[in-house]
């Protein structure tokens, strides 16, 4: 393919060397920024669709599938209004497969209330792992 450099190692003149598989295996394979309340992707890479399953319950499906379900997901999420001050929010797995990732978005608990599922206006995730 035009523009391709085949190399196993990159070497800097003074800083040392790094194997290119660090780059290949350590790069994000998918990412998105989403408004879950709409829901639409603001921007994304390597997804075919969002499925809005319910409040705080979404599935995203990959275009280039992962090698298995043992990939890692990192995310940040926030909601507008009073939710900013209500404990620590988060997201956790519902169903993980090589082709899609279903997760819950949660508002945190506070001294007077339990955590709860919510649609985050600013949900951002990155996926790292092996591609199929």
């Amino acid at each position: 393919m035009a523009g391709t450099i085949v190399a196993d190692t990159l070497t800097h003149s003074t800083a040392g060397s790094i194997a290119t598989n660090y780059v290949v295996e350590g790069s994000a394979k998918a990412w998105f920024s989403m408004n879950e309340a709409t829901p639409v992707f603001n921007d994304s890479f390597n997804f075919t669709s969002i499925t809005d399953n319910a409040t705080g319950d979404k599935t995203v499906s990959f275009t280039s599938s992962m090698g298995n379900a043992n990939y890692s997901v990192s995310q940040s999420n926030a909601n507008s209004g009073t939710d900013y001050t209500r404990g620590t929010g988060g997201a956790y797995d519902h169903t993980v497969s090589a082709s899609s990732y279903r997760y819950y978005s949660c508002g945190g608990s506070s001294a007077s209330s339990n955590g709860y599922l919510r649609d985050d206006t600013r949900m951002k995730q990155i996926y790292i792992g092996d591609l199929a």
Partner: protein
Amino acid sequence: MTTTPDFKGTHLFDRLCWAKENLDGVQSDYRVVYEDSVDECAKILVPDPNWMACALQGGILPPVWVYHELAKDEAQPDFKKHTRGYLLHTTEPMPAMTEEQAIEYLIMKDVPQHVWTDWNSGNKPKMVICRKEQLPSTREWRNAWKIADDITATDIAA
């Protein structure tokens, strides 16, 4: 119009990188509403704009049967990791699709198979393709949303 390079044999991830650099996202107004369990509310599938751009462009996405083959592999009890991922990368890419064809492809990829193969067998359709303005304008009572009981396949065709 941007011409797609000859991508046969090119890793799908590399094709998506090319598309991200060269194609503008296409925000579809189509939504797929479906019910895959009587105990759960209706689900709504929303196409990804970058994926839709790839579908309309042609020469980038693999045929949908490739995903079905990978799903079969993953359903095996001894599955550890994909060994037929090459199907994504070496199978002749799909030609350009219309937006409607792309939605059909997406249904066959991302909606459970038991829904789309049997979408009109019960008392009412289990799946409806609509435009986003036909959905409720707010998310009030989101977890109680259902496909209307009185909708028919004739209504959908109209």
